[in-house]
């Protein structure tokens, strides 16, 4: 957060691809207003420059951030993600979240969790979790409860199929309004889906062929526009039926 002078939004940079070193905003020419910076941006005196490549996003009234798509996940507090249990210790489960370090899931971070009722997970269990701590130099911390201590939808995911995607694709799937792939698929098929912001997607359905169709449709939609996604899904559905 920071103070700045008169507003002069360079409309040209918003929603455009940017690369490290681009100066996207000149604060000296901006009105005395507060702007909020998200990931990928830094302030050098009066210049706002980009630190990673991606698309510059702007949300009214004053939020700026750089959105990028990558295979590795940078944990941030509040994200709903899919983790894989790799080891269990006395106090924590070690969970792989595709990040730079393993995350800790405290054994008590479950609804009504006490020392008596510690859940048992097999190595390789898929968990839908929430990031509660993401500090640099520390392992991130996860929780299987929402802010009020309820289980909500968090916890282990049974059956189904999990595949990995880029973080950008995961974000696209979570966008509202619902992205065209899921919408088109949802009209014809019934399936369950859980999307983790860390680029993991879990799909479940009655029939394995539905799961495979849905997951392949999602993987194919990475670089397609809305209309192309629709056409692609329709084609896939036709081929199956």
């Amino acid at each position, binding site marked *: 957060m920071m103070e700045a002078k008169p507003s002069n939004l360079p409309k040209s940079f918003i929603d455009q691809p940017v690369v490290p070193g681009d100066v996207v905003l000149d604060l000296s020419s901006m009105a005395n207003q507060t702007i909020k910076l998200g990931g990928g941006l830094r302030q050098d005196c009066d210049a706002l420059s980009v630190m990673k490549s991606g698309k510059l996003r702007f949300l009214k009234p004053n939020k700026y951030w750089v959105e990028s798509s990558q295979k590795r996940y940078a944990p941030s507090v509040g994200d709903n993600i899919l983790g894989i249990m*790799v080891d269990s210790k006395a106090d924590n489960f070690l969970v792989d979240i595709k990040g730079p370090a393993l995350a800790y899931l405290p054994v008590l971070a479950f609804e009504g969790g006490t020392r008596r009722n510690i859940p048992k997970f097999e190595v390789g269990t898929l968990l839908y979790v929430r990031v509660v701590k993401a500090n640099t130099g520390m392992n991130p911390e996860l929780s299987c409860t929402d802010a009020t201590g309820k289980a909500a939808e968090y916890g282990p995911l049974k059956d189904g199929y999990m595949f990995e995607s880029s973080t950008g694709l995961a974000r696209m799937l979570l966008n509202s309004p619902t992205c065209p792939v899921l919408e088109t698929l949802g009209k014809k098929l019934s399936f369950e889906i859980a999307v983790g912001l860390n680029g993991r997607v879990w799909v479940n359905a009655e029939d394995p062929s539905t*799961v495979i169709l849905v997951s392949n449709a999602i993987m194919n939609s990475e670089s397609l526009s809305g209309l192309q996604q629709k056409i692609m899904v329709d084609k896939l559905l036709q081929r199956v039926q």
Partner: protein
Amino acid sequence: MNIKMEQRLANTWKMTVNEKKFIETALVADIRVDGRRPFDYRRLTIKFGREDGSSEVQLGQTHVMGFVTSELVQPYRDRQNEGTLSIFTEFSPMADPSFEAGRAGESAVELARIIDRGLRESRAVDMESLCVIAGKLVWAIRVDLHILDNGGNLVDAANIAALSALSTFRRPEFTLGGEGGQEVIIHPPEVREPLPLVIHHFPIAVTFGFFGDDNIVVIDPTHKEESVMGGRMIATLNTNGDICAIQKAGRVAVMHTVIMQCLRIASVKAGDITSKIKNAVESYNTERALRKIKRHSSAALDVHKPVADWETQNQSVDQKRMSDLPGHQERLKPISKESGVSQSNNMEGESQSSENVDMRFKSVSIQKLQCSFNLLAGVLTPNKPPEELTDEKPSETESDQLNADIMPAHSPDGAVGSVVETNRKNTLADAVKPKHKRKKKSSSNIDAS
């Protein structure tokens, strides 16, 4: 907590229980997670680099690069009149975090062995034609396989990469000369067209994965399937239906009827893949031939055009002016000393604009001479490697330069002398086009300074 172990845990690829279970249940229903049927191969793309003997193969997610090189070595004692073929694999940690840098893992050794067996023991590459002097010198062919991305079924992809790299590779031509015909003269590619290897047949490796106890078979497993499957079999076959090698790993017992069925399927796939490789190689060869024609024509244009314009003037006018303008020569000297290469004179000519036009004339004539000499030199002197000459070059060119400065009457000879030395370093292709570029670049540099 042991940080190092934790780091390793964080870097290894994990598979969830869900995936493992799902892959198996889907296979029971005869479908695979990427939408293929059990006996469908993934999409195969073969690309070639600009140089002969390099290939890039993509099989779905799997990405392998092949590179073939050759050198002259002493043959093995027991095979006095045969060349050698060796396969090396390079597993980059970028391809899969489980690969360790610098140390060949179990899978790297296995991969190299399987491909080596398929290619060498089936005598796919003609070794006798690689003999130079029996018992003394033979060509050693080295195939380097770089795994760029591991998406499963590395063996098939690496095998195809090796075959396609080998079939575009060309070794330099040589002739025997000297006393008793024991001296080997290797001709650079500009002088004599390099020769392709003699490949008798294409041994194609086809991998099958076996799942569970009821012998579910899939072809071309992905890396997810590889981590679930109980066993695998690699059959190496060629289009004639000859089985060159079979490798069966894992604990799963396989019925002999299943193996026979696999071999039948493999021979069909081997036919498909062989024709794919052959098509790719053919289109590479036509492209290569076209490139060659283009290169020659452009070279001819670049050389002769300016020469035709200036040739008549430069010999006389150029030299006269050189002697008429002592001031300008003085200016030239320090620079030519600085860089010590005859090219400095060309750069100078351009950077100093109008009054130095004559210098450019001279440079043009040098180029022309260079080229014509190149053709000569190609026939006469290729038996000495170019490196040996380069060290003596700078001093000589400088002295030639001085020669030209002091005695303008002799300068044509001097120019030729300097050309003789430079030309050995540069090939015909280099002599013409890139030099113009370099000239421009360096002239702008000088301007800036």
